[in-house]
């Protein structure tokens, strides 16, 4: 298969040759590496890569992936890093408007009349479109990394994982096309096995700033591109847990627990044979244990290995429920054994027993009324943009716990994987949001105008957003912290969002689904969102809604807009918690200012700059700074107010 540049233009092409999304579990090949917490089958590719920048696809070095391509004279760039932060392209902050506003006329393919193809003839039908592939300005980053395979990975099937590449990427290895990916904020994985060598591999990645995905990623943030999260290779043990779907449940008595489990296994070599249904009695085994937080064994089972394993709910007796006050976790351990009982793979996962439900139109967690003392959080660092460190995340968790913040909405995309584990272990309730925001396609001067709103109900955009929902769900489904899946932010409502909602409901009836945008198109009210979610609604209006026998419990997915010196009048919101059981709290906008640290040429000081400070136009200027923390993560004075009120409603 050859790469096709026109995929950039076609909303129906968003993943080519990617490994299906799977759970984010870690795995170990033996007891020793497990005890040490070392992923010995993983090889990190972060660091300096060879790099070439082009203003558009037409001027990019299209043949750069060939092994004999002359890359002398190329620059280098750190991975992960935004290409803009490396100095190649303009840093640009803008909120609602699409970033090309006024510079380029665009409409999303397959939406308004005249852009529909006569019939579905595949990508070839889009040759003439070229909205992104032929744009005069649509920068391209061409990355090359030469590497030898770590000895631990040699002789095994090898995959590559890009945890985040914005916004569309093509991949080659040793001159061969591997695959294509969109969806900047979830992992993209590819199999490299057919072409990988032990030494001198030439890995080539071409990252495009904009593609049809740009319509779906119109978040209110700095608009970057490039490889901005880690890249690593991994090899699979002979027998491997591809996917783990642990469904611990707290039963209706709020005391007993049960555990349902679905596993998908893969194997290579002899073990692959074992997974074939034609070879029963192969001797490969799956051992499952469940330990409590003190290390006592609570449940165990053993089954023959198979490609798919479904373990019906098993009673595990009395459990300690997981919640914010006591984020009690149980250690699930999957051990894959060969026919002689030797360990092939160990997969630990810390799970929590909890029950989120709506009873009498009130959300309850473990039988108690749920209150979100929440914040919205963008991944942000003043120095790195959306390249943030583990230390940043740990700091944020500390700020949360010190200030009684019990919930986070991952506005407006899936976050780095370690953040979810931190929320699990610290009892932070999550509304985990799908990477989708399209407000530029319907929020217009003068009001809502959804004539070309995407995804809307347009068939050509349906699979792209369903894929985002699927990848989001499959990756993070085991995290007890996630109480609600969110379909995205400010994308209006149509059949395609209804399909996303249906997807989450079908896959995961044990969690709730959140989506605010349906309040702008109430025709979908009964199909989308378990809660009435609004943003910046006045307390008086909320009281009005709640006094009129509403259908759904109410939350504010955004409130208390903390831009600059703000956050006055919080009391009026908190009092609603006392007046209405169905008012279940909200998420302050937002956690940390988005601003970028630079050296001021006049004073020589390190200073924080915002939209419009980089010759970026149009811009929404200082609207990027609405945090409870400044961009350098020092708290704003308003934080003590949050601590006080959130402390009253624990």
């Amino acid at each position: 298969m050859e790469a096709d540049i026109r995929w950039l233009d076609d909303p129906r092409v968003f993943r080519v040759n990617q490994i299906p999304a799977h759970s984010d579990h870690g795995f170990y090949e033996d007891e020793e590496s497990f005890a040490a917490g070392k992923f010995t089958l993983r090889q990190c590719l972060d660091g300096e890569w060879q790099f070439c920048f082009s203003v558009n696809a037409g001027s990019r070095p299209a043949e750069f992936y060939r092994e004999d391509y002359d890359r002398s004279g190329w620059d280098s760039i750190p991975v992960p890093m935004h290409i803009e932060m490396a100095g190649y392209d303009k840093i640009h902050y803008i909120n609602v408007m699409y970033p090309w506003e006024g510079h380029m006329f665009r409409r999303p393919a397959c939406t308004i009349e005249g852009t529909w193809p006569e019939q579905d003839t595949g990508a070839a039908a889009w040759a003439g479109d070229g909205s992104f592939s032929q744009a005069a300005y649509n920068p391209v980053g061409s990355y090359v990394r030469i590497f030898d395979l770590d000895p631990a990975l040699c002789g095994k099937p090898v995959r590559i994982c890009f945890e985040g590449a914005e916004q569309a990427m093509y991949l080659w290895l040793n001159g061969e096309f591997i695959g294509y990916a969109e969806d900047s904020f979830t992992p993209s994985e590819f199999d490299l096995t057919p072409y990988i060598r032990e030494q001198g591999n030439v890995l080539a990645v071409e990252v495009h700033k904009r593609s049809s995905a740009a319509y779906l990623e119109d978040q209110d943030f700095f608009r970057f591109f490039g490889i901005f999260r880690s890249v690593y290779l991994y090899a699979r043990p002979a027998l491997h847990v591809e996917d783990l779907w642990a469904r611990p449940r707290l039963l209706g008595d709020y005391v007993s627990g049960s555990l349902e489990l679905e596993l998908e296994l893969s194997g290579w070599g002899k073990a692959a044979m074992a997974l074939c249904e034609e070879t029963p009695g192969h001797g490969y085994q799956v051992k499952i244990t469940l330990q409590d937080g003190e290390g006592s064994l609570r449940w165990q089972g053993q089954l023959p290995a198979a490609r798919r394993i479904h373990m019906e709910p098993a009673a595990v007796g009395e459990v300690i429920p997981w919640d914010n006050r006591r984020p009690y976790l149980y250690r699930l351990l999957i051990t894959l054994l060969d026919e002689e009982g030797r360990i092939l793979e160990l997969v630990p996962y810390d799970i929590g027993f909890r029950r989120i439900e709506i009873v009498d139109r009130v959300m309850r967690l473990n039988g108690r009324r749920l209150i979100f003392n929440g914040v919205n959080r963008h991944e942000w660092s003043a120095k790195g943009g959306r390249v943030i460190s583990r230390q940043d995340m740990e700091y944020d968790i500390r700020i949360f716990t010190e200030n009684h913040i019990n919930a986070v909405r991952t506005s407006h995309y899936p976050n780095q994987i370690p953040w979810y584990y931190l929320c699990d272990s610290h009892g932070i309730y999550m509304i985990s949001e799908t990477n989708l925001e399209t407000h530029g396609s319907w929020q217009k001067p003068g009001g809502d105008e959804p004539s070309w709103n995407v995804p809307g109900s347009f068939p050509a955009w349906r699979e792209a957003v369903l894929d985002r929902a699927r990848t989001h769900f499959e990756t993070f489904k085991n995290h007890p912290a996630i109480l609600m899946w969110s379909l995205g932010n400010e994308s209006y409502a149509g059949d395609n969002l209804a399909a996303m909602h249906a997807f989450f409901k079908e896959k995961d009836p044990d969690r709730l689904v959140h989506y605010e945008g349906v309040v702008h198109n109430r025709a979908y009210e009964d199909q989308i969102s378990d809660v009435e979610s609004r943003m910046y609604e006045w307390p008086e209006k909320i009281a009005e809604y709640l006094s009129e026998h509403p259908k759904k419990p109410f939350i504010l997915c955004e409130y208390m807009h903390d831009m600059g010196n703000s956050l006055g009048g919080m009391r009026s919101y908190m009092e609603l918690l006392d007046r209405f059981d169905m008012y279940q709290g909200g998420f302050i906008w937002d956690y940390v200012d988005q601003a970028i640290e630079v050296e001021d040429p006049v004073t020589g000081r390190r200073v924080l700059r915002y939209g419009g400070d980089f010759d970026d136009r149009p811009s929404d200027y200082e609207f990027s700074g609405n945090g409870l923390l400044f961009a350098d993560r020092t708290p704003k004075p308003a934080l003590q107010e949050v601590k006080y009120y959130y402390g009253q409603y624990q």
Partner: protein
Amino acid sequence: MDNISKEMCVVYGDCSLGLRGQGFSYLFSYGAGGMESLVKNGREWLYRPPKPTFWRALTDNDRGNGFHLRSGMWLAADQFIRCRGVRVTVDGVDRRQPDPRGNNRYHGTERAALAEICYTYETITVPAAAVEVSYRVEGDGRIRMNVHYCGREGLPGLPLFGLRFVLPTLAAGFTYEGLSGETYPDRMAGGIPGIYEVEGLPVTPYLVPQDCGVHMESRWVRIRPGAGMSNVTKGPLAPPCGKEDDFLEIGMEDAPFAFSCLPYTALELENALHQEELPPARRTVLCVLGAVRGLGGRDSWGTGPEPAYEIDAAGEIQFCFWIR
């Protein structure tokens, strides 16, 4: 002795009234529209006469709310104000003479236990509003301030009302008894009562410089001096340095007050788009506030503070405090 120490010397100048006593020396100007000199223990604390203040550097919420488009005339009122007159009462007797020749009857030995100087101002708003600022000086040098905004129908809502002192140099810091952190009328529930020492004059580094540093419900604030402006560095006339009583204190009278102590005026903050655009910090701007508009926060693109936290310019605002 006791009786004598509670009396001060009164100097009936032609252009100003001087009051002098144990550890203090004050000048009240007839031409400059306010108190011109406040020397305590050898240190000058005033750079320009204190004046009523009506403006705060717009917060992002103010801007989004369009508050400035309705109330912008208070910005001009904050910058320019007309002093209409001054009344002087010494030990209960009206002493302001319409003609300086009337002062020829004094000898320079006059003493008093109580002097009251009251300046009346008129804002340049349309319509104008009146403000009275009175200094009631006791023989031991304590000054009881009374600040009174008379209110006027037909004026737009106020951002704040208070009295602004511009001190000659940058203070080393201040200590106050009140609420922790930066508090506003609609954002003070989280403030913890206590005594707080602040190093320097921090400007809260909001992305766009804006009003900041207000402390509600304060009982007293004590300003610690930085370097003075005087050229005298040697001998007995050199300003005190590091002495225990070398501070300026504002204290509450019958009710706690609000204040901010920053190195900039509202206009200086208003004029900068980034922190680094603020001029070098060189003065201390102490605003003692009788009314502060709330911050709001429901959104930043239209909704202002709740009505209870707006300041109606038609109403009277009156507050008192001590300078010690």
